[in-house]
């Protein structure tokens, strides 16, 4: 029970935001209408992805310092899970854009940045497959992971703020938090963010444990 509380908390938080988010009141706004509820699902995906990539970065640094393969497993599983959340973020975003902007994909720095950042992490996974030797694979992919991280930050956080963009929070636009969310939405939104981050970490640790077990079985 001591170690499980955060998993239960994550499930409760996500479940409560699904109910509270779909049934609760939202402000009536032009264009957005009811789709503002998507803010409970679209935005937490990206936060979770960021947290997972950050975990991966930390474990890559730890791997380079110590050379323990468990750290390498954690780094790769965090990226694997992060890519799933990134895909969910892209899909919820495309659904939303289709309704509010009229098209699922526009030539927008925020959207393109997110897509290119995904390519970077897919390249990380391909690089791992290209290397046969285990230690070499762990070391070189850790190096690429650390090298790619600041560029990802530039892509997702700095470039969209410098260019014109349709997306809220970039190109001089205000975020949803500043403008459109009322006092009912805010707590639901923060609960959703924390809940999804907990769920994301849970999935990553599960995958990590599966990998450890597989590794033990293969080594005999």
């Amino acid at each position, binding site marked *: 029970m001591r170690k499980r509380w955060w998993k239960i908390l994550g499930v409760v938080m996500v479940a409560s935001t699904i109910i509270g988010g779909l049934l609760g009141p939202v402000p009536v706004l032009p264009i957005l209408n009811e789709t503002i509820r998507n803010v409970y699902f679209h935005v937490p995906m990206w936060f979770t992805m960021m947290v997972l990539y950050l975990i991966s970065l930390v474990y890559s640094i730890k791997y380079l310092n110590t050379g323990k393969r468990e750290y390498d497993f954690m780094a790769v599983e965090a990226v694997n899970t992060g890519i799933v959340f990134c895909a969910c973020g892209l899909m919820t975003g495309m659904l939303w854009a289709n309704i509010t902007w009229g098209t699922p994909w526009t030539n927008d720095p925020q959207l393109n940045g997110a897509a290119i950042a995904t390519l970077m992490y897919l390249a990380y996974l*391909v690089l791992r497959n290209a290397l046969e030797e285990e230690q070499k694979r762990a070391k070189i992919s850790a190096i690429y992971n650390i090298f790619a991280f600041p560029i990802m930050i530039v892509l997702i956080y700095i470039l969209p703020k410098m260019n014109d963009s349709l997306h809220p929070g970039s190109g001089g636009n205000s975020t949803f938090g500043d403008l459109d969310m009322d006092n009912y939405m805010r707590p639901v939104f923060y609960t959703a963010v924390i809940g999804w981050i907990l769920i994301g970490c849970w999935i990553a640790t599960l995958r990590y444990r599966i990998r450890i077990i597989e590794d033990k079985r293969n080594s005999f």
Partner: protein
Amino acid sequence: MNLLEQVKTLIYKDVVLEWRSKYAINSILLYVVSTVFVCYQSFKSVDTIVWNTLFWIILLFAAINAMSRSFIQETGPRQLYYYSIVSPKAIILAKIIYNSVLMILLSSTAFIIYNLIFNSQAENLAVYCLAILLGSISFATVFTMVAGISAKAGNNSTIMAILSFPVIIPLLIVLITLSQNAVNGGSIATNWADIAVLLAINIVTIAISLLLFPYLWRD
């Protein structure tokens, strides 16, 4: 020898090796010139946006081809030899500086030929040249480190491309914006933000390369 002397010696070694064979520099220059001709044959005349973007795309592929060979010679026994006499920081610094000089040479040649064949459309030539200078250095810093990584993965050209494209895209976007402003006649003062971002990315890339290369180098 301290770091600076090591870097100087390593750059000197690279230049001498290059000068003896002249294979790499000639082939890459020929590559650029023939690409420009192919583009000219297929496009005939272009508007300003295509003119600018096309130049950067030609430069991107030339840079990937030139830089992917960075660590081809440093394999096996020779790597062990370097490892025992110089620090890894000196090696990556020397490679970055050497590649920057190579890229500046390459891109200025490409720009001159490109301008001769397609009519020049840059209104503010000074800013455009600054963009090329910054672009050459950026390509060199990013591709040198990625070439080091892909050299460890068996010098596979596909690996080099998939690793470096996502990393270079943010730089390329800023470079194309900056040079497009130069084409439209913007001055340095109006483009400070782009120049600052380019410099910042370069400094971060060099710092990370210096930190990570010692790990990459050690086998």
